[in-house]
């Protein structure tokens, strides 16, 4: 088990090198550079040249990449071209609101998704089942920037219950978490429903019922547990979706965070910050998926890692 975890963590290294090369390549391919953005439309060609030099952007590309990767290996991602502060500092000062948002959205998605999924599987073809199906479809299809604005209109402008923007308090977290979590809720509900339906047809469920267990005990202890494996896989993947979705959510709700920061940094061609952010997000995503894999063994004793 420990060996397995170490192996998986070591496998991160080639993945991260690959990620860094791809990002570096993309940032070179798109037009414009950090110096031009810093100078803006009102500056002069001389200003651009001078800033380009001082940022080291005039060096050959392979030299720039080597400089970056050799520093990144020891945890130094360089300085933001926009603010002049270390890229890691910029990243870490924005992690908390995004972590809050992703955690809240994921929690909402897990709780509501599982409950509605279970209800619609157990009461298959009932009104509740159809209702869950329809609401799920809406949840998956409606984009965050639409649900977000509609919620703001209702709760901030008409009812005046919740602040429309910002971060730092529970009341400011509710709407973004609902907007971001709604699609994941729907996906988890659908997955839970189909997983549970399949399990409920298994022989051991019939056996459990035959030995006279209460229907809810059959579902909770014997069926749901076995339907969890595919659901947990989906939850792990939803984490990646939530990180991506935080970009839109943070922009619509004017929330600080990694998502909106990443977009700003790409637009500013701030390569050190883009690299640091994407690599750290990649690590988070890979670690979450490692945890999901480990959770399989917990859920299903037949799965072993060695």
């Amino acid at each position: 088990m420990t060996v397995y975890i170490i192996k998986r963590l070591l496998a991160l290294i080639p993945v991260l090198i690959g990620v860094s090369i791809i990002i570096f390549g993309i940032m070179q391919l798109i037009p414009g550079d950090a110096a031009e953005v810093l100078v803006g439309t009102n500056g002069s060609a001389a200003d651009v040249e001078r800033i380009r030099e001082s940022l080291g952007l005039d060096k050959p590309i392979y030299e720039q990449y080597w400089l970056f990767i050799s520093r990144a290996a020891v945890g130094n991602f360089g300085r933001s071209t926009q603010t002049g502060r270390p890229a890691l500092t910029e990243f870490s000062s924005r992690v908390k609101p995004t972590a809050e948002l992703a955690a809240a959205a994921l929690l909402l998605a897990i709780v509501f998704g599982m409950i509605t999924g279970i209800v619609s599987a157990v009461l298959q073809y009932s009104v509740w089942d159809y209702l869950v199906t329809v609401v799920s479809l809406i949840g998956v299809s409606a984009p965050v920037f639409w649900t977000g604005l509609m919620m703001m209109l209702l709760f901030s402008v008409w009812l005046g219950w919740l602040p429309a923007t910002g971060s730092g308090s529970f009341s400011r977290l509710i709407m973004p978490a609902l907007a971001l979590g709604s699609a994941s809720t729907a996906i988890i509900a659908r997955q839970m429903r189909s997983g549970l339906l399949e399990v409920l047809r298994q022989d051991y469920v019939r056996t459990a019922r035959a030995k006279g267990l209460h229907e809810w005990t059959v579902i909770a202890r014997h069926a749901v547990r076995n339907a969890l494996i595919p659901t947990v896989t989906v939850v792990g993947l939803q984490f990646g979706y939530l990180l991506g979705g935080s970009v839109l959510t943070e922009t619509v709700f004017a929330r600080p965070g990694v998502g909106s920061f990443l977009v700003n940094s790409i637009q500013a061609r701030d390569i050190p910050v883009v690299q640091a952010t994407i690599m750290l997000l990649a690590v988070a995503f890979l670690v979450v998926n490692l945890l999901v894999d480990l959770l399989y063994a917990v859920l299903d004793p037949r799965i072993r890692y060695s």
Partner: protein
Amino acid sequence: MSLLLTRRSVLRASLALPAVGLLAACGGGSDKTSTTAAESTGAGASGTTAAEGTPTPIQSSGSAPTAASSAATPEGSPTASGPVADVDFTIVDGPEPNSLDPCVGTAYQYAVNAIFNRLVIWNEKMNVEPSLATSWTVSDDHKSWTFKLRENVKFHDGSPFTSADVKATIDHILDPNTKSNRRANFTLIKEVQTPDDLTAIFVTDPVTPDFPFLMADGSANIICSAALQKMGPADYGRKPVGTGPFKFEEWVPNDHISATINEDYWGTKPLVKRFVYKPVPDPATRVIVLKSNQADLVFGLPPADVPDLQKESKLKIVDSPSLTVTQMQLKQAKPPFSDKRVRQAVNMAVDKDAIIKNVMGGFARPLKTPDCPGLWGAFEFDPLPYDPEKAKQLLSEAGFAGGFDVTISYTSGRWPGDDQVVQAVQGYWGQVGIKATIKKGDQATFIADLTKDPATNPNLVVMPQRTSYYTDYQLYRLYQSDAANAEAAQRSGYNNPEVDKLLAEERMEFDPEKRLPIFEQVQKLIWDDQPFLYLFSMVNLYGMQNNVSGFTILPSGDWIPGPITKG
């Protein structure tokens, strides 16, 4: 499998963990609500009027900056016209600044206005008035400018404001490591002499009659040399120390920047206790923030939403003149745009009044000058009329009867209405046979196109917005032909030797009476050449809550913190 924990306990923990994280994350404090209880301060008891504390203009309108040489301000007489209310004054706009170091910031920054002062400040007529400097004179040989500084001014960290800070500010801008985006404008300063604490002498080469204007530039806000040295430039941009009416309080990235009232402020003290700037990138969200009263003042409103907002009784929608102009620059080193008839045709093909009315909702003004309208030295001319038939005729005379292909490059979302304006131009041009492809990129992509060589990109059209604070700055950088010139940002390939000659003349002319005719002549030549598609000049458009009064935004985009009240 050797797990210390049972499967059941791990399952339980895995469900509980996100919940704990969520609770911990949300427990971090309740909403800050502003109270309306008025709080009387010592300064408020003086009972003087705001007008007495306001620096009076030292020049009559329309005169050139060189004439300035008097000290007509009530020096160091801090007055406030009433009690300071314990309320926040919150401004919302789109961009998050990259730094609050005045010479590094890329976006226009409301917070910098609140925290810093310059030697001189713009007024509504885009002339300069005393601020940290009380008077200034130029030497007979025009090479050195002597500024007398205001006495008894303190920075927010308590250190006194002296000529050393003025010198440090210029040194900081010129230091290549600062990465100032306006450095090229300041390279003519060869030396800053500080004979005593309250005198700063600038030696320039070449000489320039516009030097006081340069000192009113946002980059030239005076920084605190002691604090800069202590903190280093990157941190100084994060926790700025100035002499302004508000002291920096905190900056939560992408959330807000706040500053509290400076009790020791030398000038007119604001009547609100706290200044807050919030970046809200999405225009639709800004409308909601305004409607739900979560900000006192909101900029960057989409023109299409304005009629609806005007119906709200608790809001005021205001528009005031701005120096920002919207033009499409035609790369004209080669055909088709090297032909004057083609440039006139692209102007005549577009119904600009219709765009102003229908796309911009009336919140823009017709552009009648190659300068920025409202500047001293700007002359207006008759715009070419909307006449698609004449445009077609001009095109066929120039040998383009079958039209030609162009690409219009711009950044979407920099100002409300930009997408629709480009589409409208595409439509109008299509009617005279010019097939335009729209290239919508982010700012970096756009700037790359803007700076592309006109000789190798003859069919490229770019749409930047330009803001210039004085006439020479606008004319020289846009129409002087030498693109390699350090000050010129001109990448359109426009080249008229006569214009070059007149520009070289006016920028050495210290007598405003002699300078004005040159300005008129050169602008007439440029207007006749029609190097760009002149679309319109912008207005400063904002919405504010009805209970806010005393807010002024100058054409330069600077706002005046002094007289703001919230009742």
